[in-house]
C-alpha cells in the first residue's frame, strides 16, 4: 500500500554533515518537525517528495522508532544531539556544527545542517 520514495538532503551554506538519504517506511513513516510554528517548509518538502507523513513534534508525541527523519531549528546545543543519540537522522535548518554535551553522537551519517528546501532533492 505504501509507496515511499527517497530524497537526498545536502548541507546548505555554512552547514555541516550529510548528505543524508531519507526513505520513510511503513515502520518509520514520520517526517517529524521539531520546530516552532508548525511544520517547517524543509520537513514539508521531505514529506511531499517521499510520501512520508509530516508530523508536528510540538503538538503531539511520537516514539523515536517511528521517525524517518527529525527536522529541527536548533541553535546548536540540545536538539542537535538528542535525535542522533537515538540514531534518528537529523536535519537542522540552522547552520550548526557538532557541539554541546551530546556532540559525540553527531556524525555525518546522521546529521546535516544549514538545510533549505532547495537542498532536498529527489534521489
Amino acid at each position, binding site marked *: 500500500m505504501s509507496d515511499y520514495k527517497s530524497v537526498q538532503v545536502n548541507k546548505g551554506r555554512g552547514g555541516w554533515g550529510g548528505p543524508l538519504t531519507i526513505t520513510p517506511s511503513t515502520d518509520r513513516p514520520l517526517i517529524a518537525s521539531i520546530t516552532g510554528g508548525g511544520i517547517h517548509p524543509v520537513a514539508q518538502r521531505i514529506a511531499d517528495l517521499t510520501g512520508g507523513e509530516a508530523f508536528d513534534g510540538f503538538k503531539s508525541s511520537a516514539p523515536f522508532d517511528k521517525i524517518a527523519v527529525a527536522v529541527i531549528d536548533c*541553535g*546548536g546545543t*540540545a536538539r542537535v544531539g538528542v*535525535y542522533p543519540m537515538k540514531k534518528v537522522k537529523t536535519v537542522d535548518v*540552522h547552520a*550548526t556544527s557538532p557541539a554541546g554535551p551530546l556532540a559525540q553522537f553527531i556524525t555525518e551519517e546522521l546529521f546535516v545542517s544549514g538545510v533549505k528546501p532547495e537542498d532536498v532533492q529527489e534521489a
Partner: protein
Amino acid sequence: MTTDGSTTVYESAVTQVGGQVAAFLDHGLLIFFGAGSPAELHDMSVLHEASIVDDGPRPGDTVHVGATALEVLAVGDVVRDNLINLGHLDLKADGRTDANLPGDVCVRVGELPLLTVGDTFRITRPDQQARRQT
C-alpha cells in the same frame, strides 16, 4: 510589568526538572523547554510554563534563575525565536561576550543553580530612564 527600574520581558514557572539537568550544570549549561515540548527533550531540560512572553533576552538584561540573578553578556541569533515559539533557551556560563552558537545565552563563568518545581525563571530589562542615569 515594571518594578524597581526594570521591566520583566519574560517570566515563567518551573514545572519539571529532567534527570540529566544536574549533569549538564557541571558543563555550565542549563537548558529550558516549554512544558509542551516533545518527551525526548524532557530528560535534559527544565520544563516551564510562561506567564509573560514579551521578548527574548538582550545583552545587559538580567536572567533570574530561581534566586540567582545573572547578567546577560551575549545572545545568539535564534534565541528570541526559540524562546518565544518553544519556551526554549540554552543558558551557558561561559563568560563569552559573543555567542559561540546561535542558540546561546551567555552569562559569567560560575555555578548555575539546580532549579526545582515551582521556581521562577524571569528576564528583566533595565528601564531606559534608569540606563540613562547610570
